[in-house]
């Protein structure tokens, strides 16, 4: 058996971990055009000079110990499904018996005139983070415009303030984290960002990037022109399906997979930001480009590739803003789309520095927000995952001392006494 993995981030490492649970011997080959296995969610930390070794997610020892051959700095350009081989940009062929495509996401770049100018950056790769940092230094940048107020946009803006650079965040919606956070949460995050000196321009968008070859300013939809020594585009990532397309597999918004992470082409699996994932909070399949989900999908793919049949539990959208002094976590549906949801709030942010919110539908927790005090909220994430009936203790969901004693006794028997904590044990009840 010969396993090949294209990509070298969370899903790839998850896949190696999964394969090695079952098959300790067969060779694994990892192909990546990048040169190290670094932590994707940590690249913005480059701006505040995180030590290089901290960026490494898995070092060479990990790959050696797991008998993994690394082909780095070379790009997989095609999958030849007839001869079962991956074609590299050097024309070299890498044969496979089972292949994982974990090619990740690519930043969405809107078709704005001038966006190709020097000085416009995205933030999904370590190389681009370093290029941005160097550009700021080279230009002695004083002012930066960030397009988009999602997690990456906010993080970059925050770190730029640490460097003493003026930052304006331009956001189409009327609040930060509009797609991920509820209104109160957005308000709190915005106030923390403003305290740091970040400026926001809401309900507006960049219509043109101005400057000769290099960006010097941007023109907004409102007509105003603002100075920009550099621009960061952070309005989301899309599944990178370029390689998958060469294999002729089924692709919707992302690569389509079965519950066992199989694609529509035999012997090829897919995991991570390049796929469409089942969102267990609404039952819909969509790209959910998040590190923990990518790892877990990769892990499940690895088990199945090695012959252990296992179904993916499904994904929950979840986020943590790791750069703020105040921890901000959320999971699932945080803004109810209609009045069939019940919302329980414990907002003590102004007096005691914390905010908790739970969103319930049909007696099941479907989402929560925790700001300031976050200890033990993973219990809530699991209530979402296992779809446990919370009707007997729903008022307690937003209390800081909510714990396992609030859960049904049968759950504690099963998880604590019987120790049913294997992957399959976490399915909905």
């Amino acid at each position, binding site marked *: 058996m010969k396993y090949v993995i294209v990509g070298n981030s969370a899903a790839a490492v998850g896949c190696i971990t999964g394969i090695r649970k079952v098959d300790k011997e067969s060779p694994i080959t990892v192909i990546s055009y990048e040169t190290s296995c670094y932590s994707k969610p940590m690249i913005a930390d480059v701006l505040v000079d995180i030590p290089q070794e901290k960026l490494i997610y898995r070092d060479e020892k990990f790959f050696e110990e797991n008998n993994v051959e690394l082909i780095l700095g070379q790009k997989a350009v095609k999958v030849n499904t007839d001869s079962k081989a991956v074609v590299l940009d050097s024309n070299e062929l890498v044969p496979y018996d089972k292949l994982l495509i974990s090619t990740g996401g690519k930043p969405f770049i809107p078709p704005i005139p001038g966006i190709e100018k020097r000085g416009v950056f995205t933030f999904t790769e370590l190389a681009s983070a370093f290029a941005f940092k160097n550009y700021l230094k080279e230009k002695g940048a004083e002012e930066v415009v960030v397009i988009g107020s999602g997690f990456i946009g906010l993080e970059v803006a925050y770190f730029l303030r640490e460097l003493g650079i003026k930052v304006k965040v331009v956001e189409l919606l009327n609040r930060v984290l509009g797609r991920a956070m509820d209104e109160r949460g957005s308000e709190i995050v915005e106030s923390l960002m403003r305290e740091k000196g970040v400026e926001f321009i809401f309900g507006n968008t960049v219509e043109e990037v101005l400057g000769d070859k290099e960006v010097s300013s941007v023109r907004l939809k409102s007509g105003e022109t603002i100075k920009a020594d550099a621009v960061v585009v952070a309005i989301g990532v899309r599944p990178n399906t370029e390689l998958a397309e060469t294999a002729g597999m089924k692709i919707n918004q992302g690569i389509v997979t079965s519950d066992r992470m199989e694609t529509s082409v035999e012997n090829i699996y897919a995991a991570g930001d390049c796929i469409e994932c089942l969102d267990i909070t609404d039952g819909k399949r969509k790209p959910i480009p998040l590190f923990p989900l990518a790892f*877990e999908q990769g892990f499940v793919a690895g088990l199945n590739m090695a012959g252990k049949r296992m179904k993916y539990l499904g994904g929950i959208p979840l986020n943590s803003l790791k750069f703020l002094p105040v*921890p901000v976590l959320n999971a699932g549906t945080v803004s109810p789309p209609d009045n069939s949801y019940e919302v329980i709030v414990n907002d003590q942010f102004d007096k005691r520095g914390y905010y908790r919110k739970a969103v319930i539908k049909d007696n099941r927790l479907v989402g929560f927000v925790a700001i300031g005090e976050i200890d033990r909220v993973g219990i809530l994430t699991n209530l979402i995952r296992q779809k446990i009936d919370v009707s007997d203790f729903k008022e307690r969901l937003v209390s800081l001392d909510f714990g*396992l004693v609030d859960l049904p006794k049968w759950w504690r028997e099963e998880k604590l006494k019987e120790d049913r904590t*294997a992957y399959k044990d976490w399915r909905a009840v």
Partner: protein
Amino acid sequence: MSGKKRKLMKVYPIEENCISCRYCEVACTMVHSKSKDPVKAYKLENLLPRATVEVKGAVSLSLMCRHCKHPFCFDSCISGAIQVDEKGQVHLDEEKCVGCWNCVLVCPFGAAHPYIREEKRHSFKCDLCGDRGFPACVEACPNKALVYDYER
């Protein structure tokens, strides 16, 4: 995954025996301190227990890392600070941890905790008292509400 039992010893709580005395919390904080003094550990070293005593009416129990057969914290860890050894024990390297709180967000037991004091930010959890060979909480428990046993 093979269905075979792992040779891992863990701490199992028995809620029927728990009297919510919190000796486990005190013992935990003490043995993880520099001073090895329960009061100094809490007051001067700002340490927090890795075991959590929960109380609701007549029910109470002490809860710490379950070293899950499938640890979601390991999946979610972006820094590589969380690793699983060959026995199945889950380790959290507090120096390597960058405080992203993903493990806090996904632990079904609420057993990975955030440590947030000024510049020091990292997660922490039960390490089964690896340094001393036997979990201090189990030793401290006066009513056998915590037992150290092979994985079930």
